[in-house]
């Protein structure tokens, strides 16, 4: 028997064994619907926390400023777009161009935050010193991202993504941006350079950890 025939025979045996171990599976809902479910759960939990703990009068004052309102909107859109893209790319057959979806709101977020820094005179020192409360921001984004990422990866791994890298990158960007958006409700001061840098560092940390752990988290092969 030639090697070629042996290889074909092995493929035949593989088909037989896959057939033998076939079990019914529950078809996954469309990715957009699954993304909406995750966003809805996060929104409900965040809303409860905001109503319970945030100083809504300060939030209202801040949101009255168009630049800050734009920054908040762009942060939220970055989160939503990245989460949608992560779910869409977790299943085969979708265009990889979906990965670009969060880029426009991300640029808007960075632009609006950058404008805030310029407006505040690029001062490295906030009212509370060099780092001020910015370290708390970093800890908030990183800390809030953990439970959100756990839920997200739990949902994403049902699709067993064949290309885990973009899925993990987009998912963690979405989680970190969502955490940064929720942070806005507990962030009583305007952005400084250090503040923005630590926000970005927190996003980078969350993405870095998610990318490092992408294979075990997504159960990819």
């Amino acid at each position, binding site marked *: 028997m030639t*090697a*070629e025939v042996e*290889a*074909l025979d*092995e*493929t035949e*045996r*593989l*088909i*037989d*064994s*896959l*057939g*033998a*171990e*076939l*079990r*019914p*599976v*529950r*078809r*996954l809902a*469309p990715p957009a619907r699954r993304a909406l479910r995750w966003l809805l759960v996060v929104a409900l939990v965040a809303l409860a926390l905001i109503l319970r703990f945030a100083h809504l009068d300060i939030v209202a004052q801040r949101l009255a400023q168009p630049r800050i309102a734009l920054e908040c909107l762009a942060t939220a859109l970055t989160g939503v777009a990245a989460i949608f893209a992560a779910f869409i790319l*977790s*299943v*085969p*057959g*979708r265009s990889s161009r979906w990965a670009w979806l969060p880029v426009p709101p991300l640029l808007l977020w960075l632009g609006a935050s950058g404008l805030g820094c310029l407006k505040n005179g690029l001062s490295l020192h906030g009212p509370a010193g060099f780092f001020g409360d910015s370290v708390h921001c970093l800890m908030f984004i990183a800390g809030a991202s953990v439970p959100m990422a756990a839920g997200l990866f739990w949902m994403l791994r*049902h*699709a*067993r993504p*064949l*290309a885990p890298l973009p899925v993990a990158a987009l998912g963690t960007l979405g989680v970190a941006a969502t955490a940064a958006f929720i942070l806005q409700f507990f962030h009583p001061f305007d952005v400084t350079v250090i503040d923005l840098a630590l926000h970005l560092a927190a996003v980078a940390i969350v993405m870095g950890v998610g990318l490092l752990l992408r294979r075990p988290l997504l159960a990819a*092969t």
Partner: protein
Amino acid sequence: MVAAQAGDRRSYERLLREITPFVRGLVRRHCNNHHDIEEMVQDTLLAVHRVRQTYDPARAFLPWLAAIAARRGIDGLRRRIRIARFETPEAGVYETFGDAAANNDMDGVRSAQEVEALLQHLPPRQREALEALKLRELSLVEAAAASGQSVAALKVNTHRALKSLRALFGSGGLDEPKG
């Protein structure tokens, strides 16, 4: 595919047999070695099996299948490049010696307990591959279906496991058994 998702074995096997030539054609675009082509076809079929819950009947089947084949093709290509970059064939592997005992690398391992102790030093996936293929003597296909590792990954992990075992002996990381 819808019937396969519901657990209809006959439809599933028929589908897999019908898509195999299509997948082979796709794979041939990336690869011209017959052995590698068939390995990538098998990897694609395993991937189809693993992600069959993601197929949405509202969308076309062939783009879904082609995306899986393309992904496995890229993974296979990367793997071959990685192996080619870091590993070179070792002529001595096939050398035989006049002294029959010298031809047996595992000559000193006298009991199953000693083998078991050695395997504990290997990463889990390498150990799993070695146990399935060399100790339980499963075929590549059976081992792939049982472990969830692809055929190519099994081969690589087995090769690395054997290499690691040799390194463990060579470095004195273990008490090398006396022949």
